[in-house]
């Protein structure tokens, strides 16, 4: 997959033609949100699926090896064993998709995961070849932006490149669409909304536009690019909305950890609480479930 997008020359006319109507996208986002797509067994199964998409994240200044260790253990055992058994899902090997920590804590995380005997990947800013591009295309032009991302692409070799779009700073949804296209044309394997550390993060309208860009890119080039929303996804209900959004806009093929990730920290515990309720018929107290 490394060579494909690099070979194709940038199709800037496509980018300049792109049009996104913001009020219409906002209405679509409202409609998606108003839906209660799944209930009961379906809800439980969808939530367990959502767990496998989570990049379990801690990016706090006060992270130490002890809480990173706890996080890794939670990544390996995201849902209480007896609950999984009740759902007959204990042998599915459900873990989160990855663990995200600050570069300084990567060693702790790898050590902890090794101790737990699992191969959950650890992601971090520099070690895995992440790069932050110039977030402002206004001053430098789309062509320049593409070149910049392409250099990251080359520098990362065989590693997968994830491009974060500072969607809050792009100014308009049309720019979000264009930036997504540029990032994909330059060879990104994943595009991601701005992180939880920024003021504007994963909003549904932005996601709709990015997903449509991913689909258009797939139609045009045959390449599937992944999508990762992050920041602000805290409840099980949110997670269900995101899953159904990806299902609606891109289809079932994208509902795999290779193409869809959710960056979150507190989401997992809410999902576990919902599963608890589904299995037992009762709402859990905080002490009923292990913390991460």
């Amino acid at each position, binding site marked *: 997959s490394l060579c494909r997008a690099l070979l194709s020359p940038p199709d800037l006319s496509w980018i300049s033609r792109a*049009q*996104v*109507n*913001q*009020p*219409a*996208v*906002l*209405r*679509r986002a409202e*409609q998606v949100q*108003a*839906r*209660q*797509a*799944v*209930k*009961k*067994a*379906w*809800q*439980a*199964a*969808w939530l*367990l*699926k959502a767990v496998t998409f989570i990049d379990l994240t801690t990016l706090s200044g006060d992270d130490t090896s002890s809480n990173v260790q706890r996080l890794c253990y939670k990544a390996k055992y995201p849902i209480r064993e*007896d609950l999984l058994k*009740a*759902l*007959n*899902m204990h042998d*599915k090997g459900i873990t989160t998709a990855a663990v995200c920590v600050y570069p300084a804590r990567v060693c702790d995380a790898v050590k902890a995961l090794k101790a737990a005997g699992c191969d959950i990947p650890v992601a971090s800013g520099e070690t895995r070849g992440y790069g932050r591009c110039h977030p402002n295309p206004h001053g430098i032009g789309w062509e320049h932006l593409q070149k910049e991302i392409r250099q990251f692409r080359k520098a990362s070799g065989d590693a997968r490149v994830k491009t974060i779009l500072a969607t809050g700073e792009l*100014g*308009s*949804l*049309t720019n979000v669409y264009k930036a997504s296209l540029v990032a994909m044309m330059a060879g990104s394997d994943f595009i991601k909304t701005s992180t939880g550390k920024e003021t504007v993060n994963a909003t549904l309208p932005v996601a709709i536009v990015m997903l*449509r860009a991913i689909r258009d890119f797939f*139609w045009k080039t045959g390449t599937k690019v992944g999508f990762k929303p992050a920041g602000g996804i805290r409840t099980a209900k949110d997670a269900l909305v995101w*899953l*159904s959004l990806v*299902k*609606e806009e891109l*289809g*079932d093929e994208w*509902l795999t950890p290779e193409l869809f990730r959710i960056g979150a920290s507190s989401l997992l515990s809410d999902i576990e609480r919902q599963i608890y309720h*589904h*299995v*037992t*018929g*009762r709402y859990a107290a905080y002490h009923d479930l292990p913390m991460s």
Partner: protein
Amino acid sequence: MAATRVEPRAREIFSTLEYGPVPESHACALAWLDTHDRLLGHYVNGKWQKPEHRNAASCQDPVTGENLATFLQAQEKDVGAAVQAARTAFESWSQLPGTTRAQYLTRLAKMIQKHLRLLWTLESLFTGRAVREIRDGDIPLAQQLLQYHAIQAHIQEEALADWEPMGVVGLILPPTFSFMDMMWRVCPALAVGCTVVALVPPSSPTPLLLAQLAGELSPFPGILNVLSGPTSLAPALVSWPGVQKVVFCGAVEEGRALRRSLAGKGATLGLALGTESLLLLTDSADVDSAVEGVVDAAWSDRSPGGLRLLIQESVWDEAVRRLQGRMGRLRSGRGLDGAVDMGTRGAAAHDLAQCYVREAQSQGGEVFQAGDIPSNNPFFPPTLISGLPPAAPCFQAEVPWPVVVAFPFRTAKEALALANGTPRGGSASVWSERLGQALELGYRLLAGTVWINAHGLQDPAVPIGGCKESGSSWHGGPDGLYEYLRPLGTPPQPPYFCESLNYDTFGLAVPSTLPAELEIGSSPEPPYGLFVGGRFQAPGARSSRPIQDSSGNLHGYVAEGGAKDIRGAVEAAHQAAPGWAVQSPASRASLLWALAAALERRTPALVSRLERQGAELKAARAEVELSVRRLRKWGAQVQAQGHTPQVAGLKGPVLRLREPLGVLAIVCPNEWPLLAFVSLLAPALAHGNAVVLVPSETCPLLALEVCQDMASLCPAGLVNVVTGDRDHLTRCLALHQDIQALWYFGSAQGSQFVEWASAGNLKPVWVNGGSLRAWDQQTEGAGPELGLRAARTKALWVPMGD
């Protein structure tokens, strides 16, 4: 730890990630039906009525076929009792201060708040529509409607001081309606002080439930009465005295039949017909969002009908690919499942769609169907038809739910021609990111509502209506209120129905005129002929009719106009209409003022003619003077048109445009030969219409006198004056399919004929029913009513955001 419940299916769903059912419990709906022993009668005067010996219609769940309830069908005497109850209630309800009515409407909104689940499950259970749309769309809108109209009632004494409620309103609803159709009409009627008798199909309990909720609140229980029964009871409804207005929404042909059967019955008829919508997708649009617009417009339970989809050629492939992809993800199923996008509309709607699709296929259309649809009968898959040749009968026919018929177009101009080339004029949306293009299309589409880059938005403050065969009644906003008001002090119109009137022969032949004695004219005669296309022309029949003065002497000869002259006059008016419609208000005003000045200069001649018709000098002078004032008044009022309603939840303006009707035909009364002529002409011109006028039959010379000035001042064809036999000319005008509106001030029989004949192209008509009008009074001669009737409203939604 609590006992666990084992779920065997989770494993399977985990790998397929399919959607599951989200069943909405409808136990409360069934419980409510049980309190009535599953037998629903009528809700009249605050009480449930279950008269004996009535036909019973049983109603089934559209999906399971299970018997839900039995409805008693009303008979004529039940209708009579309901009208009587509404009349009694009207006497006190209309006299209440608006603030009290406002409180009552607010209380009704709160009452609905307490029974939300009952309302939405009952409605979904019986109609089969997706409960999600009813719960998240209809019910909140119903509450907003009550609140909006409560505010309108509160300020009624100030804002609508010159108006009074009409009386009892008859509301007739078709079998395939949602209870929102009722709310849109009941709220304004109650707000302004009218009372309502609603005739609903014997398959919808929601209106009965609403009437019950309303009845329990009010000290005047008769304000909202609901009967179950067939549409055929409509003539019985208006035959009871007191019913001043009948409102109908439903199919075009039913509306036409109703228009004919109510001719002459005295009640005003408001029609809202057809369900088809239109979507115009240009090459600069956000295609993905437009595809969602198509879903809103045809493949969701938000939309009432099918969609005509015009796609610009250059984006045809892209748009169709996206549409087909989107269709595959639509889910259809039982309406009470909260996860479905489309429910069912019952067997009748299914058969209608099936029939249309088969026909389209046989006429060369390509049919694409997709979606997750249960295979059993009441469900119909979302359908996209393309490649239909323009000559195919399906091309002109109304597109039923849930069918979308797509056509390509090359330029915006061609799109307009295609879009405006149907007899329908309901709602449309334009998808374009180019502001200039979007506005151009939005302004020039002949439709009641146009959304730019959106489809199907609604708000209580924004009027909804249509033009052409979609009917000319309005609901929502100020226009919705005027539907139930009449100018203060004007008496209700008595019925003028004449059983013996023969529609086939009325005005068919012109009685031949004998040559009379010599003319004895003191003043110079106006030029002889019909004033058509800006000049005086000889009539097609080449004959004349004598005009007598008040003492029976010959006053002069005028041309005898006929069918061909009317045809010519309408053609001339159509040529002048587009140019006049785009004139700025200022230039329209200056023309009217110039006409006023010309009239003033002609005062001596006009006064002497009026005197010969028997007017006293003083009265004659006053009539001319008032006519001059009227022209000036309407000229000055041209500026004040349209406004921008504020809409909750929408960023961006909604423009309430007042657009010209097109060619307006006016038959003037015999009395006030100058003043009535001017009073009718001035508002018509001020609002941008081209006019074909039939002046006073007995005294047309004054109008012809004025035409001499119009020949030099007005653009050719803007005003056309055809003299002759009134009945004959009225027949020609009323049966003309290309006249957009007709005002008639003549005999009772003529009024009845005009109403009957207007069913042809469903043009809005205004008739006097044979009664006289005080043209010299402000209210009747120059009141706001004339301005309202001289133009039609269009709501143009312009959402903004980047």
